[in-house]
């Protein structure tokens, strides 16, 4: 029933000249998304990857189990001095992420351009 979560990794350079790794998600983010969310993140180098963007543009459904996976990702990133920002959330999920406090640990931006400019 749940649409499979797809993820892909892309390397970009921010306007300030920093290397940025973008994790692009697609589909639902729910309890079945552990490999796509945490697995993809854990495949990145903790030594060389320091700026990470999470792209939710193609995500339609996120439930509390999916939000918990994002929090686990933020926990690991904080432990390795990695900065996380996210973009592409709908206004509703921007509200939900704000309600649960995620904005304290990850900047939320409407678009990739705005997120890249903040890095």
């Amino acid at each position, binding site marked *: 029933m749940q649409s499979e979560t797809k993820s892909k990794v892309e390397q970009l350079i921010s306007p300030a000249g920093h290397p940025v790794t973008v994790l692009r998600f697609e589909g639902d983010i729910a309890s*079945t998304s552990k490999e796509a969310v945490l697995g993809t993140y854990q495949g990145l180098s903790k030594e060389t990857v320091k700026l990470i963007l999470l792209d939710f543009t193609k995500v339609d459904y996120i*439930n509390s*189990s999916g*939000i918990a996976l994002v929090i686990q990702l*933020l926990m690991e990133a904080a432990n390795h001095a990695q900065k996380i920002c996210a973009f592409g959330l709908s206004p509703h999920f921007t509200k939900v992420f704000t309600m*649960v406090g995620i904005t304290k640990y990850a900047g939320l931006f409407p678009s990739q351009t705005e997120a890249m400019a903040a890095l």
Partner: protein
Amino acid sequence: MTAFKTTSVEVRLPSRMGFEKVAMSTAASVAKLMGFKEDRIEDLKTAVAEACINAIEHGNRLNEKLSVGVVLSTTGDSLEVKVIDDGKGMKKQPTKPDIDRKMHGEEDPRGMGMFLIQALVDEAEWVAGANGKSSYVRLVIRLDKEADPDGE
């Protein structure tokens, strides 16, 4: 706005993760027919999804022989949703998640469903069923919430 005619819609879901989306879609369709604004429909969808996930996972413990009942009732300008399972009901009240405690591993990263339900609808109550069965969560969302002079 003309009050929506009193009516009721029922859905039965298997206790399998993912089927909460059927209840979400049904609730969204009813709310749209009633004239709810898009942002309130999104609030309702998340609240209904979380209520169904709790019923599937905690109430019916993923037992596919049990089903989750979802009853949507319209009364005037409000939509009531009851999500019924065969569990003993929730003993705890929703608490606001503490992101700092979660980030420091002092609180389970999960466990936000009840908080989201309560925060996104106008009324939410958890009722334990008699004999430890048929427990339900009851949600109410009202039209034109913004127009209420008390902001409630």
